[in-house]
């Protein structure tokens, strides 16, 4: 039994090893391509022998098939290979094939930037709240892997700007910046070698700060109700809180409660609630509490 296993293994080795060797030898090349070619540049390759042959260049970005004359050099124009990547070449002449591998690299000249700026909306005065990521591409939309100096600038509506620069690594650079204290749209720009890309970041007011309300009776109009109105609601940086923000009025009285969620309109929230003598009326927006009023003008 063991001898059969031995024989089988020997056979496998005998069959496999020359195969592997052949595989390795297939990579031996007589075709001399430059090891690296910059995308969009012209170059030529010399050949040996005589007669005609077919040249195949295959890569994930480009495919070329060309009939060439052996013994002459093969020329490639700037438009022939412009996608960066690893290419394999075969020169087939009759039964013989010559192989080669080479790389097309991205141009060093940045032409476009993919700029990811996030978030598109954030509260004011938030440290490191804004992030920018830039990918640098050449004119053929190849990622430029060589380091590039990229400048990021975030300028708010008043013109104040934060500027940072970063060096790209493997084609990407990133920064984080603070949002400004003043609400409004801010311009966020990335720039490399005079190539710019802009984004707009909305800097919005933060939570309301110290909500204050007043209460007054409706008099003859409706004695049973009390009118409530806030002062203009602002965040802690003085920015007006946007209209539509909900302000909750709650009236608590003996054995009961009334409440209403009112949106800010033109900066203030106002409503009417049933009037109860001795009722405590409070105001809040989200988790921020405002002042309290003890109402003594009710029925």
């Amino acid at each position: 039994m063991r001898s059969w296993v031995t024989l089988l293994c020997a056979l496998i080795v005998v069959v496999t090893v020359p195969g592997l060797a052949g595989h390795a030898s297939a990579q031996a090349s007589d075709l001399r391509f430059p090891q690296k070619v910059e995308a969009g540049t012209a170059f030529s390759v010399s050949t040996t022998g005589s007669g005609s042959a077919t040249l195949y260049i295959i890569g994930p970005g480009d495919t070329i098939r060309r009939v060439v004359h052996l013994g002459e050099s093969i020329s490639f124009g700037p438009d022939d290979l412009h996608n960066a990547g690893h290419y394999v070449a075969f020169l087939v002449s009759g039964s013989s094939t010559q192989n080669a591998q080479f790389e097309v690299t991205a141009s060093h000249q940045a032409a476009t930037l993919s700029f990811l700026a996030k978030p598109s909306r954030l509260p004011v005065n938030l440290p490191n709240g804004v992030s920018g990521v830039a990918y640098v591409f050449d004119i053929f939309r190849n990622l430029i892997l060589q380091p590039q100096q990229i400048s990021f600038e975030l300028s708010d509506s008043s013109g104040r700007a934060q500027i940072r620069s970063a060096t790209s690594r493997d084609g990407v650079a990133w920064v984080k910046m603070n949002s400004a204290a003043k609400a409004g749209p801010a311009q966020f720009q990335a720039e490399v070698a005079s190539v710019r890309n802009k984004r707009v970041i909305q800097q919005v007011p933060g939570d309301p700060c110290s909500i204050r309300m007043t209460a007054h009776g409706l008099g003859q109009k409706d004695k049973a109700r009390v009118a409530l109105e806030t002062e203009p609601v602002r965040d802690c940086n003085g920015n007006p809180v946007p209209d539509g923000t909900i302000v909750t009025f709650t009236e608590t009285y003996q054995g009961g409660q009334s409440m209403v969620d009112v949106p800010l309109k033109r900066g203030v929230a106002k409503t009417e609630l049933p009037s109860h003598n001795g009722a405590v009326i409070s105001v809040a927006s989200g988790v921020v509490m405002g002042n309290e009023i003890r109402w003594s003008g009710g029925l």
Partner: protein
Amino acid sequence: MTGSRLLGIILIIATVVLVVMGTIHPNQSGAMIADSRARLIGSASSPQDAVNNLMQQIGRRTWEAAYASLANKGEFTETEFVRDLNGNYGSLRSYANLDGFDSQPLRASGDEAQVRARMRWASVVGIFEDSRDLRVVRNGSQWEVAWPIVREAKVPPQVIPVNYLRWDVVYRGAEDDWGAQDVEAPHVRIIAMHPVDRGGGVVILGEVLNEDVVPAFVTVKASLLGSNGSTLATEDSFDKISHILLPKQVSPFRIDFRNVRLSQVDSVRIQPSANLVAASADPVIGIEGQKLTPLPDSSLTGSLVNQSGQVVNVAHVIGTFYDNKGQIVWVADQYPSRALLPQTPVPFTISLPADVSNKVGSYRVVASTYSSSRFQ
């Protein structure tokens, strides 16, 4: 020949008898809901018969017959009667069918009696009850129901100024343009979460805040994780939440898990998700006269007042109940059956479990609304 035809005569008689039996004592449990309630409308020889007959007619929506049987039909029109039961302005009642009823005599004399009729209506968002104390009066040998009409409120002619606050959303579009900005999803935050064991299952109670400056369409999903990190169950808040939250608005949420015990749960993963949504700040709903009713009818009552000029067809009130330490002990909801007309209070009642009722120290109610353009 007479004998030979006897079988035929017997079969005909048996058929008639069987049909009569099936009609006098119908058992139509396999029939459609509306059909299964069909009964022979007999004579109203007692107050309860009169009420039962009326309820059957209401259940089968034979409005004309029901109205004709009333003792006080001179006080209102058939249209008003139908509107009382069937709703108006696209309210929840207009989406409801009588699912069942029971009647309970309260008092009776020779010529007059009072019977309480509890009607259970099945609506698209669940069951609601309508209880009416009916006066039943004798008319000759028959009894007739005097229907306590609830007239739909009439809004006085007026001009209500409208300055709509409305958000619309324009998205970037489907084309792929890497790095181009799209509008940011709203930021929401869970500000409270409390799991409790209840009724053979786990209930997650909590509150979510829209901390952004734009409206958010919010859904809260929760997963119960076992001790080995495996997910025991995942559910979402479904309608036990106010899905559209305006900036800085807070909504309670409740997520029910059946057949899981809290002891099996190692941790809870809450996943709030928020999307930008076109929304309007109107209508503004005041929730007035909120009052806790103690046991045995433990509930929170109050009334909704539509402070805007737009009719709200269906409203949804959700109550958050806290203990004295401020921890959420229960979240419950109700859909009032009537439409909210401008400036017209509509009562609501949120029922509370008896055991929770004792613990409630404070509460908070939010209302969300549905307005269909078809009824404006």
